[in-house]
């Protein structure tokens, strides 16, 4: 819900106002603060039993001030006025030792707003019931699955951004989150680790009613017995949605965000408005979406976030730059940052997409090294299957893939009609050609 600025927890506002008063009193030109109060309630399962209930109360304050474009930043986890005054003094001292940077600044005055979503109080009984059902449903339908851990947590967070230009924004969110790690085991044979994460509003939903969850558990069960092959070949990858998420984070880091653009290493730095990918590629950052509860309403530097396309029909439309990154590079500030995103679906049914592969891999997870600044990457294909003559055949182990992220976007030849939803993202299956695939 969006409304005029109003903070629920007065202690948050008091802490923020004290920070700004101190910033002004100490002689800084301008400054900003993030203040938040969070209560985490976690139910944890490990080693065959529900093992722990955990409650974490945490307060956080970050202070940034500028004097003659010299920056000092301090983070603390206390609303105590003595601690806040000390933090501002420390930030002042840091700024005094820093070199000036003309690109530094804070968000200019805009409409002050507040957002809210979800429940403030966790329903621990419902969380417990959901966890018990999830384990029972898994044991019944996927008997080879063995969970290393499952965490169901509720996070209630109210956060406030305030700066000396008069900007005031707040966001109050209460959401549930499920995380886990599991293998399939049959006697002494075991699959690779696998996992799925989900963010949601209602803990009374049964986890195993999700098609995505059932698919991942089913595929993992089929990976207990794997095969290797010898030699290497150039083939196709069919990238599953969870693995695509991993590649999109890499693409953000290597091509689109502050670090790559300020340093000048981004291979796309001069490519705005140009065709950098297959016309099938559509990649958008999300601030608001009816199916994605994890979307954030606020940017990290004091603006209201907006949905924003990065790549549209293969054309680079926007970079994902902070206010500082934009000032530093002369490019436009992003209306969002890579956090919650969608990849546009195509018009190829998944079955047909796989049927078009002569030889390749259905890639479930990528365990790889950090891509090089040029986008080169290599790593191990995990939770994956061989595709031969349009059919998914053996589950694989000890298979490596090597390619280049930019080339992979250009060599995208099909995008599935179907998509999956984690609460953070909405992603399809993507088929890429010409990747080096090597066995033992």
């Amino acid at each position: 819900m969006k409304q005029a600025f109003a903070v629920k927890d007065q202690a948050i506002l008091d802490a923020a106002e004290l920070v700004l008063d101190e910033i002004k009193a100490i002689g800084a030109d301008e400054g900003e603060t993030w203040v938040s109060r969070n209560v985490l309630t976690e139910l944890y399962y490990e080693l065959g039993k529900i093992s722990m209930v955990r409650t974490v109360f945490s307060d956080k304050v970050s202070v940034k001030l500028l004097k003659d474009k010299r920056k000092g930043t301090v983070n603390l986890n206390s609303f105590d006025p003595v601690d806040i005054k000390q933090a501002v003094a420390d930030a002042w001292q840091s700024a005094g030792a820093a070199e000036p940077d003309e690109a530094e600044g804070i968000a200019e005055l805009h409409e002050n707003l507040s957002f809210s979503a979800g429940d403030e109080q966790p329903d621990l009984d419902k969380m417990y019931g959901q966890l018990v059902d999830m384990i029972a449903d898994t044991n019944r339908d996927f008997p080879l699955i063995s969970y290393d851990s499952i965490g169901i947590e509720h996070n209630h967070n109210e956060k406030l951004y305030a700066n000396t230009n008069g900007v005031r924004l707040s966001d109050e969110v209460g959401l549930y989150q499920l995380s886990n790690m599991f293998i399939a085991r049959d006697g002494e044979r075991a699959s690779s680790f696998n996992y799925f994460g989900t963010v949601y509003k209602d803990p009374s939903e049964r986890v195993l009613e999700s098609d995505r969850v059932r698919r991942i558990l089913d595929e993992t069960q089929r990976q207990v017995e794997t095969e290797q092959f010898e030699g290497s070949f150039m083939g196709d990858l069919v990238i599953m949605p969870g693995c695509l998420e991993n590649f999109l984070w890499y693409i953000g880091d290597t091509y689109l965000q502050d670090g790559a653009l300020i340093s000048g290493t981004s291979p796309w730095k001069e490519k705005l408005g140009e065709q950098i990918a297959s016309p099938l590629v559509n990649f958008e950052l999300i601030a608001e979406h009816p199916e994605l509860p994890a979307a954030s309403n606020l940017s990290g530097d004091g603006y209201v976030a907006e949905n924003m396309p990065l790549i549209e029909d293969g054309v680079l439309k926007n970079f994902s730059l902070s206010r500082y990154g934009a000032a530093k590079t002369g490019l436009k500030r992003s209306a969002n940052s890579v956090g919650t995103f969608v990849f546009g679906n195509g018009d190829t049914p998944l079955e047909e997409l796989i049927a078009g592969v002569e030889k390749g891999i259905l890639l479930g997870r990528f365990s790889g090294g950090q891509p090089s600044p040029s986008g080169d990457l290599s790593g191990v294909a995990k939770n994956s299957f061989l595709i031969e003559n349009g059919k998914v055949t053996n589950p694989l182990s000890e298979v490596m893939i090597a390619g280049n992220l930019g080339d992979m976007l250009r060599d995208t030849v099909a995008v599935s009609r179907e998509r999956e939803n984690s609460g953070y993202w909405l992603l399809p299956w993507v088929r890429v050609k010409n990747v080096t695939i090597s066995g033992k």
Partner: protein
Amino acid sequence: MLQDHLHEYVRKHGFTGYTELRAQENRNRAVAMLNGSLVSNSSGISRGVSARVVKGGAYGFASATGYGDDVEAIAQIVRAASDNAAFLDRHVQRGQPDFAPVQPFSRTDGFEHDVPVEQSYLLGIVDELDSYIAERFPSLLSRRVFARVLNMEKLLYTSDGVVSHSFVPRSNVYIFMTTQDADGQPVELYKVLGGYGNFPATFKNAEDYFGNLEKQHELLMQKAEGVYAKPGVQTVILDSDLAGILAHEAVGHTVEADFVQTGSIGGPMFGKQVASEKVSLVDIAHTAFGELAPVPVFVDDEGTPALDQMLIENGILTGYMHNKESARKFGHEANGNARAFDFSDEPLIRMRNTCILPGTDKFEDMIASVEDGYLMTDMNNGQADSTGEFMFGVPMGFEIKNGKLGRAIKDTTVSGVAFDILKTADMVSDTVTWTNSGMCGKKQMIPVGMGGPAIKVKINVGGRA
């Protein structure tokens, strides 16, 4: 140094049932320069109190920010943890007895390194290093210099009467240099300096490290002219950094007792030959080869005194890493592997300083023994699996042809199944080096040390066809 307000709580309230009570402060500082611009200049404190209570085998945990002389605030946290344990105990009714008590003791470690450091000191070191790079290597596409400080202080009281107050400092500087290859593509190489210790003692003068910068630039130029490695199984000498991450990622995780119980390959291989007899692997608690290890742990966060944990002895898998609960289940000794990162984190089974012990081979002889293969010198990240299959990124290495080092190679990845790879280890060098910048992720992040000699193995390389 944290004041001891927990003592007053314990004197006034005592403990009811098995309880760990911990006050903790993580202090950090960060300075980052990107092409001469100061993109980060921050410091931070994370301070708070946590309690973990166990009732009938059900764990309740609670924590809150802030720590002071308000004994009632501490009591509220203990009560919240106790309520959580009671909620779970009502539902699961596991009926397990408390852990066997340990002998009470009290100790203090590491505070001789607790020296105040000003942000301006970090800024000065980073600025000098950055200026040197800018002046000496003006044709670089980009340069980044980061300084990071993480000082962790913990004050632990347990219901067994254990009192431990510890301080563990870590100080690192990261140097990234990027150039372009003949095709105009960016090529990067980074190095990490520093390790255990406070920042002023670790980085007395920036100029002490100018030699490292010259060497790094020389390697980067070689890498820019480098070639892609050949894909498939190759003979590779993994230098110390890679042997260390092999010890951590590929073996260490599979012999953490929680992963063993989930079904890792470390379970069925206990007592069996998992490596060549030249390979011995140990998780060092605090002291190795007469010096402090990179991340010394004297008492873990369950109050267990920390001892070295032998994992592989002359190729035989002989041990697991435990917390109190897994040690009881397996009938083994717990040797201090239960560690928590922040005040709000519960202790998990974690490595401390995993190290392959040195062998007897000379590094030069190892190179000379390879007809066609690679020397891999640097690593950037690694992941492991329950099956023992692992990968790590390799940002620097060289071809070896006819016993001599050849061209540099571009970024690649190596992978394999740990116990298969270690069985191929036929040479182990006689010198160990440590890395101390690693953070291991497993629900929480935590600092770890990794060490090893160079080892010669056959391993799968993710090269280009």
